């Protein structure tokens, strides 16, 4: 196994009863790389991320930072530096913005100085959050909630950040802003594994893409080698 691969997945299978959502996929994420998994609804993208975070039963081998995490309990995974920013944001609506961030730092809760530093970093990246830190998260706008979800995921200093549909339900302008932030996050050294339906914007920031169809990868390769038009027509159904 190449040592510059932060995440290596072999033969990942996810089943919901008799239905196979993910059918034996193989992929990897390199150090400080941005990789996207694209595909239409129900292709198995979100299931892949949930399986990596240990949240759903799965088969196959998942290696993160040279450690086999296929059987690791979900609550232990963030401690290793692998953080999922869940679909539909999964923010805690009845907690304040700052409490949401503090919970994001649950895995590093012993290190108070680091938490303070990270909160500052998040507020520098998303100033809106800093302005609203006492507000209940449920009262934020959709865009702010997405910022909060990403900011919260950054709190425990992930080495690999997994994002599930960060563009969901946002205006084009906000989507641009969110993806610019992802670029900034990546530049500071965090690898990103992105699941997206919005293929165009995802391809802008990714070095490599995997296109998923019926639980398998139909296309994989460097972003610049993939023809966007064929991809759109054949696999994304738009």
């Amino acid at each position, binding site marked *: 196994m190449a040592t510059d691969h932060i995440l290596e997945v072999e033969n990942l299978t996810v089943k919901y009863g008799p239905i196979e959502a993910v059918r034996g996929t193989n992929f990897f994420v390199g150090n400080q790389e941005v990789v996207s998994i694209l595909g239409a609804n129900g292709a198995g993208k979100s299931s892949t991320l949930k399986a990596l*975070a240990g*949240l759903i039963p799965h088969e196959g081998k998942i290696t993160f930072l040279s450690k086999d995490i296929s059987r690791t*309990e*979900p*609550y*232990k*995974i*963030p*401690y290793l530096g692998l*953080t*999922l*920013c*869940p679909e539909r944001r*999964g*923010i*805690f*609506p*009845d*907690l304040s913005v700052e*409490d*949401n961030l*503090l*919970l*994001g730092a*649950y*895995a590093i*809760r012993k290190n108070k100085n680091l938490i303070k530093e990270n909160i500052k970093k998040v507020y520098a990246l998303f100033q809106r959050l800093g302005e609203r830190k*006492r*507000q*209940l998260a449920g*009262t934020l706008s959709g865009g702010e909630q997405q910022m909060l979800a990403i900011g*919260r995921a950054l709190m*425990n200093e992930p080495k690999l950040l997994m994002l599930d549909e960060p563009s969901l339900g946002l205006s084009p302008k906000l989507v641009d802003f969110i993806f610019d932030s992802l670029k900034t996050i990546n530049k500071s050294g965090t690898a990103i594994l992105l699941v997206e339906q919005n293929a165009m914007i995802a391809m802008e920031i990714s070095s490599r893409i995997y296109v998923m169809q019926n639980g398998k990868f139909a296309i994989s390769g460097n972003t610049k080698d993939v023809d966007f038009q064929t991809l759109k027509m054949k696999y994304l159904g738009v």
Partner: protein
Amino acid sequence: MKKYLWFIPFVLVPLPFLGYPFLLSIFVLIGIYTIAAIGMDVLTTWAGQISIGNAAFFAVGAYTSAILVVNFHVPFLIAFLASGLFAMIIGIVVGLPALRVSGFYLAVVTMAFGIAVQQIIGVFQITGGYNGIRNIPVPSFWIFKASPVYQYYIVLFIVFLIFIVLSRISFSKSGLALFAMRDSEIAARAFGVNSLKYKLAAFAASAALTGLAGSLYASAIGFISPSQFDLTLSLDLLAMVIVGGTGSVMGVMIGAAFFVGLPFLLSGYNISITIIQGVALIVILLFLPKGLLQIFKITDLFKKKVI
């Protein structure tokens, strides 16, 4: 310090009623039910789980305490702590399998547990079967004689201790993890919260508090039998939290006062308590959906929202 100040009026409450031991004993009962309802509040409002079997923990506490005091002549303080501990152990044993389900399923599982415990108690010799246990002595220590005033202050002190502990937890990292789990379990787990552990802790704490309340109940009433710990009690505990106001000891206290105090207030008149209580419940939930505690925060309606 400021958050403790609202307890001061409760220290003064019994003073005008010193000559009315019956009224004082109702205040004592309100306090006891407050403790049990706090146990329910921890489970529902804090952890987002539900139980309609908490009467079972109340019964476990009451019987543990009564049996230890009556049959084994154990000092009340030890019996009291033992009843909380035993209820907590039962809570963990039941919670481990039960908390794998949630929502309606958990409601049904806990209900079944509540009914089962009531039946089991009725079968055993040591619990006095369906006849129950009589003449449970009222505890007295040192200069404190067994009077309602003294019981009132003991119960108030216990509520105060619980309040301190709970408010500490609510501002701690564990409290944060618990609330996060309630809001979005998937996200909380994705950030490293061991959700089963926290759910179980909430269930155990709920059982322990309810058990402690049961112990106090047994010695305050002096007589216990299985019929006192039926489904109605479980539902009343849940309703106390909702009627009073979730997530606050003050609210829960108001809910307990409503459920315990109202029947006594109306007992002099020849009207059905159930009907009055039912109508009052509907009116409260219609006009004060956040519970009776809202009355005391009426000024909030005139303030501009800060956020």
